[in-house]
């Protein structure tokens, strides 16, 4: 179990043999730590430094653990505090947990358990911090990608933003796949039916090699700059927990559906309109503008 970078810790404990054990334990793990042994110095250290976790011994004679937590939280409401206490003060420790302590460890100290707990808590805090930073960056975030049909004609273009959100744990794999799928369907519609002006009915016309006319015409028009260089604009925005993706094509537009019921009718939807069904089925909100040349899909993610 390795924490990289090494965490900064504050240990609140009076001098004694146990403190020596603590110090040896932290040093052996290569962790940075400060030690405070009374209420005031502990509070000063907590206020004036940035510790990922404070390990507070509730057995100090002059230190009320709850009072210390309350005092720290006045200036640092999100400070992670782990409580260590003897069985005699278990009730106070439970109260500390109710007040938001990240964990409670009873003496005698099981150092292996202490190590696992610190690694787990610090890892979680770092993951939450990373998520918070990304979401903060995303608040009122907007990015625009400009491309043409020839840029993305034959690739499954994915938004880097979704990979970042998944890596940070903001969205799980299933949600990432759903949003990616809806996005790719919307992009394919804009590209094929918008910019390249391909008709769905061509999917039922085959040449002697079994290749459908739709695919043949797509290949042909991707080589024709009057089609393939038409721009497509993709914009992403995030606000109040909602991720929105807009795609604007340069086609002639179409009679956009007002909702999923417009095109769920019979078996024919299996061959036409699958993309729209996927989009409506996976996203929370779908909106067409500009005569059907712009689609905005929205998904609540937080």
């Amino acid at each position, binding site marked *: 179990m390795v924490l990289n970078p090494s965490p900064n810790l504050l240990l609140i404990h009076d001098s004694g043999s146990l403190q020596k054990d603590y110090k040896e334990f932290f040093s052996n793990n290569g962790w940075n730590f400060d030690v405070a042994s009374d209420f005031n110095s502990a509070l000063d250290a907590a206020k004036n430094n940035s510790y990922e976790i404070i390990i507070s011994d509730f057995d100090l004679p002059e230190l009320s653990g709850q009072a210390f937590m309350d005092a720290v939280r006045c200036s640092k409401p999100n400070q992670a505090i782990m409580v260590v206490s003897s069985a005699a003060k278990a009730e106070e420790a439970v109260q500390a947990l109710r007040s938001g302590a990240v964990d409670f460890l009873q003496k005698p100290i099981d150092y292996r358990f202490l190590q696992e707990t610190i690694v787990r808590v610090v890892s979680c805090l770092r993951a939450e911090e990373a998520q918070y930073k990304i979401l903060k960056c995303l608040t009122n975030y907007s990015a625009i990608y400009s491309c043409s049909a020839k840029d993305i004609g*034959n690739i*499954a273009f994915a938004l880097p933003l979704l990979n970042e959100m998944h890596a940070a744990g903001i969205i799980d794999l*299933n949600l990432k796949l759903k949003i990616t799928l809806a996005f790719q369907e919307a992009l*394919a519609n804009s590209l094929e039916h918008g910019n390249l002006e391909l008709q769905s009915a061509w999917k039922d016309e085959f040449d002697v090699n079994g290749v459908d006319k739709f*695919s043949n015409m797509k290949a042909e028009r991707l080589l024709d700059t009057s089609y393939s260089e038409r721009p497509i604009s993709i914009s992403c925005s995030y606000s109040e927990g909602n991720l929105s993706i807009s795609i604007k094509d340069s086609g002639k537009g179409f009679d956009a559906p007002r909702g999923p019921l417009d095109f769920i009718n019979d078996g024919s939807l299996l061959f036409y309109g699958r993309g729209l069904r*996927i989009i409506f089925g996976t996203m929370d909100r779908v909106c067409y503008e500009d005569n059907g040349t712009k689609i905005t899909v929205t998904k609540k993610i937080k």
Partner: protein
Amino acid sequence: MDFETSSTGEKGFITVGEDLDSEQSGEALRKAFNKVYDLGLRTIVLDLNGVEIINSYGIGKVLMCYKRLKADNGVLMVKPLKGFVKETFELLMLDKLLPIYDGE
């Protein structure tokens, strides 16, 4: 990119080993299908367990296989699906169209 094909008795099998979300994988499916179809087999089983992502394009290719077989009184089956692919098939009601093949 090539997908593995095999046959047992009157059944042909295609193991799709890549995500079905691009022209490359769609073309690989078409080639694999033609290979089995040209053997005269009219019951073909798709194994999509190696597929994590499928999109409309990939589903279109699956449906083309279905249409060609149906036109020749054949059947396209799928091995039991899971995860995102299963959800997508259910969303599009493909699970009603393509019977599940439970054999080994």
